[in-house]
């Protein structure tokens, strides 16, 4: 940075822009940040590693094989198992009744077929599990066919695997939202409380430094850092996984900046009173954990009951994730995203207003 060029005694006499306190505060933020290898890993390395991991785990592959078991009670079991093996989508094992029960309970098999007397068959499965219901359909189909049922209508399959509907396409906007949230909350919260704990905040307000510049330097440096983080994560996912970016660059930039400001305000609010790292860490985890779960980072927030949906929709991370997904995957523009933008704007205004009012400078 600047001091690499600065040598000799004249370097000390900064002039113009470099002499301004806002510029100094921002460069100091950057230096402190880039000289902290762990911080760099968590903001760059971690989201990319996560994307790679998830990309591999959920890469496009033939539809999952469904594991089922047939309880071994005699020759009928072998016949049933044989007819099930005719379906390549099923992995079939024959198990003793005890082992079958265990396999079902631990989720190793999705369904257990129990041949009973009089040629009937009973299916044991958890009807709340989607894969178990799939297994029920496939197993039943195979058994009925094996028993001689004929299809009454001719059907054909055409497989459509589109970019934008894969899991990686779903999860990258979520990871992006998570990065923005983590950067805002950790980036401001931890650092400000650390400075308060070390009495550095008190030392700074004992100088003529305008307090707005101190806070402004955090917001500005956060936005600059975020631009780099986002560029790396998005560039990586579009190049390696072909994650689509169908919306306009302007729209996605606006969503990201507004989200960053909302989470920056959130981080500032969390950091506004704490005097210990332990205290602020607790607050940060308390506020981030529910959003990791509820706001649709790794799975859709639609999975939660409709009664809590209004609450979930009001969370800033939900707004960020929904807006990013709509923009990247469906090409939605800002005019279609006003509810999410309104939520983010409200969080930003309320957080900053409260934080500035209750901020403890010493």
């Amino acid at each position, binding site marked *: 940075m600047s001091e690499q060029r600065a040598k000799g005694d004249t370097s000390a006499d900064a002039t113009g822009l470099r002499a301004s306190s806002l510029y100094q505060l921002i460069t*100091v933020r950057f230096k402190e940040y880039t000289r902290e290898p762990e911080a760099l890993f968590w903001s760059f390395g971690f989201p990319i590693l996560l994307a790679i991991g998830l990309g591999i785990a959920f890469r496009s592959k033939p539809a999952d094989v469904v594991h089922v078991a047939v309880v071994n009670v005699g020759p009928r079991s072998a016949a049933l198992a044989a007819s099930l093996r005719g379906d390549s989508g099923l992995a079939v094992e024959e198990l003793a009744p005890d082992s079958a029960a265990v396999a079902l309970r631990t989720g190793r098999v999705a369904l257990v077929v129990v041949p009973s007397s009089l040629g009937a068959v009973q299916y044991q499965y958890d009807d709340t599990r989607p894969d178990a219901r799939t297994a029920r359909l496939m197993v039943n189909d195979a058994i009925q066919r094996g028993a001689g049922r004929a299809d009454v209508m001719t059907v054909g399959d055409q497989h459509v695997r589109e970019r934008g509907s894969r899991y990686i396409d779903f999860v990258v906007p979520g990871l992006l939202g998570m990065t923005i949230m983590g950067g805002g909350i950790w980036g401001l919260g931890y650092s400000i409380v650390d400075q308060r704990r070390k009495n*550095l905040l008190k*030392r700074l307000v*004992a100088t*003529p430094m305008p307090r707005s510049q101190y806070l402004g330097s955090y917001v500005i440096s956060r936005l600059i850092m975020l631009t780099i983080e986002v560029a790396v994560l998005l560039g990586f996912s579009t190049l390696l996984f072909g994650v689509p970016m169908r919306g306009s660059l302007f729209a996605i930039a606006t969503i990201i900046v507004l989200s960053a400001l909302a989470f920056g305000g959130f981080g500032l609010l969390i950091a506004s009173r704490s005097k210990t790292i332990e205290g602020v860490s607790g607050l940060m985890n308390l506020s981030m954990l529910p959003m990791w779960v509820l706001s649709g980072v790794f799975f859709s927030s639609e999975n939660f009951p409709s009664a809590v949906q209004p609450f979930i929709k009001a969370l800033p991370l939900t707004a960020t994730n929904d807006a990013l997904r709509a923009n990247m995957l469906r090409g939605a523009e800002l005019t279609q995203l006003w509810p999410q933008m309104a939520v983010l704007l409200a969080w930003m205004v309320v957080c900053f207003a409260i934080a500035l009012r209750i901020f403890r400078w010493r």
Partner: protein
Amino acid sequence: MGWRGGEQEDVELPTMPEPSNSPQHALFVRHLHKHYDDVRAVDGLDLMVAPGECFGLLGPNGAGKTTTIEICEGLLAPDSGDVELLGLRWDRDERELRERLGIQLQETQLAEKLTVEETVRLFRSFYARGRTVADVIGLVQLDEKRHARVGKLSGGQKQRLALACAIVGDPDLLFLDEPTTGLDPQSRRQLWDLITEFKALGRTIMLTTHYMDEAEMLCDRVAIVDHGKVIALGTPQELIGSLGAEHVVEFALLDGAPPLEDASLAAIDGVIAARRLAGGYELQVSALHRTVPALLALLAQRRLELAQLTTHSATLEDVFVSLTGRQLRNE
């Protein structure tokens, strides 16, 4: 100069000039009170510091020194009382005061990842006018360390860097809160030299310390503070002179010896005051050459043997002991 706090208040306050626009005082503090919960940290404290003076607040830990100095620095609000600095007040002139004060807090950990030069340059950027970064780094003798990270500095170097940050705005009034606490003797001496140099520029300094030698070395005048009050005020020489004793004799007897009664100690030639301390006795004496032989004669007569005998010139420590019956150190 009288130095019993209570008496001085009554005598001096009515004649205290009202603060005016032309500051006769670099610092003027009157009737200052501040309490935390049920502790009266500052309990009716008055101070006047003249321009160009190096003024010390000397007292044990918990005496209210830091609370007092932080109120003066505008970092704490007093419960009641007046504070005026350079003819300015915190409620009206905060902006100008911040430009004209230099402050070193008792415990500040500067950002460890920054270098010395980056730290000083940051603080320089806050002030409209001031010294150059290189100038200040040279002044605190950190030239060789200018590209070193703050986290790698020794305690003394960190303290000098803190001093650099305090003087980079070229302040008219410099506050130093316990500037050498926790430093080794060599680092302390180095800091004393720097403070003396700054003083030579004609700037006003107010410092707190619980080291009597530091106050004697640096301060033109000293206020001894205890329980939030000024209990003695004067130049170090005046305060020591007020004891009437130039020397202090400390001695201890072998274990098991019967205690010496105060009356016979006080009756020894040249003794002004005698008191029993934990593990021994302390005599404030005006004429060491007469007292020591007389003491030895007394002990010989009683067939008592010395375990230890030391003497030193009277210090501010002895002033504090004679005022409070307690010692400054070991707290």
